[in-house]
């Protein structure tokens, strides 16, 4: 057991820190506003030009072949520098690992580089109006017609769907199938005829979500990721944990915890809150340690299963608790516009998206503790 970073890891960290020192991101407007979207896209271009946009990918697709540990180091330096959440996170963190694991060589070459360069923005197409927590009840269908899929149905809660060029999602490709069977993982260009994207105003009024209506949308069968009918397995594969780590790496939470310590000091000393501030920092540090723990296990060839659900529970509740603590520290100023309010509102979504925390607790109880299904 060795928690010290290797010389190579330390050199990688120094390179990150140095680049961010010379290329401060500056404050950007919300990525869910038109102006903010463009600001974020140029920031992503700067990252890409310096080969920082997808450090853990193969070099062939725009990466640096960084290890998972180096990826975590990158994230720490990224958020320590005050850089913003990633605009194309669905492409980078949800689709790309799946493409790397299950995609054909052609698919990787076609789709990965424009994700890294942010030339093509992706949104996800999982949820449907009647398939949320119960995702396996989805009914959007893909009907085979020669070399094409004909897609019909409705997807919802597609984050940043209004700005996206592409959507990846699950479709019922076997009309007679039920639940988790007979689903295919299909990549859909949103400029295809028959696609209608309707923005949904988020709580803050910005069109953070979209509904995507599909009316006889034709896409090539070659747009299927992995084998036809294996969509559920692919979407939920062991890449799940890796996706979880890269989606919510500890770097961002550590940066928040450090800012919370500063806020506590600035606001004088409401002693009753010191305990919660200490808890917030401890929770973030524990998440960082647990991530290094899990990544070390993966790098030694171990596997991660339902622990991904424990992870999601931890980061989402920790993030909410940190921001609630900040709101309490801010007193009368809590509801005022600013980064803490934005962070608070965003953190409220944590226990909901990516599988509600109720579903995650079921998974932990059933798969880790072996309790019977309801």
């Amino acid at each position, binding site marked *: 057991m060795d928690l010290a970073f290797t010389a190579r890891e330390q050199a990688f960290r120094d390179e990150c820190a140095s680049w961010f020192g010379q290329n401060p991101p500056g404050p950007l407007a919300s990525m869910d506003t038109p102006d903010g979207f463009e600001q974020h896209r140029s920031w992503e271009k700067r990252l890409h030009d310096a080969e920082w946009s997808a450090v853990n990918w193969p070099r062939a697709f725009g990466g640096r072949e960084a290890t998972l540990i180096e990826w975590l180091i990158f994230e720490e330096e990224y958020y320590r520098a005050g850089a913003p959440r990633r605009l194309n996170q669905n492409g980078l963190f949800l689709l790309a690992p799946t493409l790397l694991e299950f995609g054909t060589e052609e698919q990787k070459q076609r789709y990965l580089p424009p994700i890294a360069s942010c030339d093509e923005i992706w949104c996800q197409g999982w949820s449907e109006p009647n398939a949320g927590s119960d995702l396996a009840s989805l009914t959007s269908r893909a009907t085979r017609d020669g070399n094409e899929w004909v897609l019909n149905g409705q997807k919802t809660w597609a984050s940043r769907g209004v700005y996206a060029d592409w959507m990846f999602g699950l479709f019922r490709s076997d009309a007679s199938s039920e639940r988790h069977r007979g689903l295919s993982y299909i990549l859909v260009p949103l400029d295809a005829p028959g696609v209608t994207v309707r923005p949904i105003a988020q*709580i803050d009024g910005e069109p953070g*979500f979209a509904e995507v209506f599909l009316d006889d949308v034709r896409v090539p069968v070659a747009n299927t990721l992995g084998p036809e009918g294996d969509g559920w397995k692919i979407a939920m594969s062991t890449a799940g944990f890796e996706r979880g780590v890269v989606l919510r790496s500890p770097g961002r939470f550590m940066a928040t915890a450090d800012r919370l310590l500063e806020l506590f000091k600035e606001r004088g000393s409401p002693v009753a809150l010191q305990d919660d501030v200490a808890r917030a920092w401890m929770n973030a540090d524990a998440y960082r340690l647990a991530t290094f723990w899990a990544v070390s296990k993966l790098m030694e060839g171990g596997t991660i299963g339902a622990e991904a659900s424990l992870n999601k529970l931890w980061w989402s509740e920790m993030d909410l608790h940190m921001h609630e603590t900040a709101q309490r520290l801010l007193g009368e100023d*809590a*509801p005022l516009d600013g980064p803490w309010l934005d962070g608070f509102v965003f953190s409220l979504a944590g226990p909901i998206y990516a599988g509600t925390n109720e579903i995650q607790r079921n998974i932990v109880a059933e798969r880790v503790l072996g309790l019977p299904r309801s």
Partner: protein
Amino acid sequence: MRFQPTADQQLFARTVRELLEKECPPEAARAGFSAERWAKLREMGVIDMLASGMTEIDLVPILEEAGRAALPEPLIEAAMIAGGTLDGVVTAAVGTRYAAHADVADVIVIERDGALYSVRRDAVTLQPVETIDAARPVFLITGGLESGTALEADRDLADNRATLGAAAELLGLASRCIEMAADYAKERHQFGKPIGSFQAVKHKLADALLRVEFARPVVYRAAWSLSRRDETIERDVSMAKAMAGEAAAGAAKAALQTLGAIGYTQEHDLHVWMKRVWALNAAWGNPDEHRARVASAVLH
């Protein structure tokens, strides 16, 4: 000892509820201040209750109804701080730096050297402050604070009354959040069942209700202490604001988690109530500040 609202108090609250169901449905609560509705509240006698000899206790059920409706108007300011003594649209910056609806007010109550003054809106300089609660815009008063007409009212009493008013509105907001969540949980199906049949949903909402139901008598007790000018006003009002505020924050959070993604949009009404909970929780002292005040009272 008789610790229940009187029949008259309950009747008046029902009348106000009916008025607000008509005049302040959710789409109106979203839209913000309405001069017409203000006039109706005036006419009904809701704003000048204290001035017409009623007590803080009489106002609690009324303000609870205002919360249930997410009423945008500055009722706490006009009825509790100005005590219903001023005409026109009234707001205040007493016990808080931020005056709600100051842009549409005729008069604003301010504090100076521990005393209260009423100033005309056009005599002061207003600076809008962006907050999460769009239906209740707030303003800093950055100039003209030396002007105004002295009011007889006691500054601390006005502050405590406003704090009580916020606590009462928070109760109503909280109750409505829980109802919205329960309604949704009865309708929304997943896994072939209404989600309200899952214990995770049931227990979350039961816990939220628990906090609201136990905060309500605490709010009434604070009103009673105020109405008698008891020595325990500070402790009792703080306890009310702390418990009603935490109950409301918890109810909003439980409702959001029950609704899931739809609760995180502006397509459902929940966000209007949730934002008002956040706004009133922060105004006139947040639960932490008030709990610290209770701690001082009981520990020293």
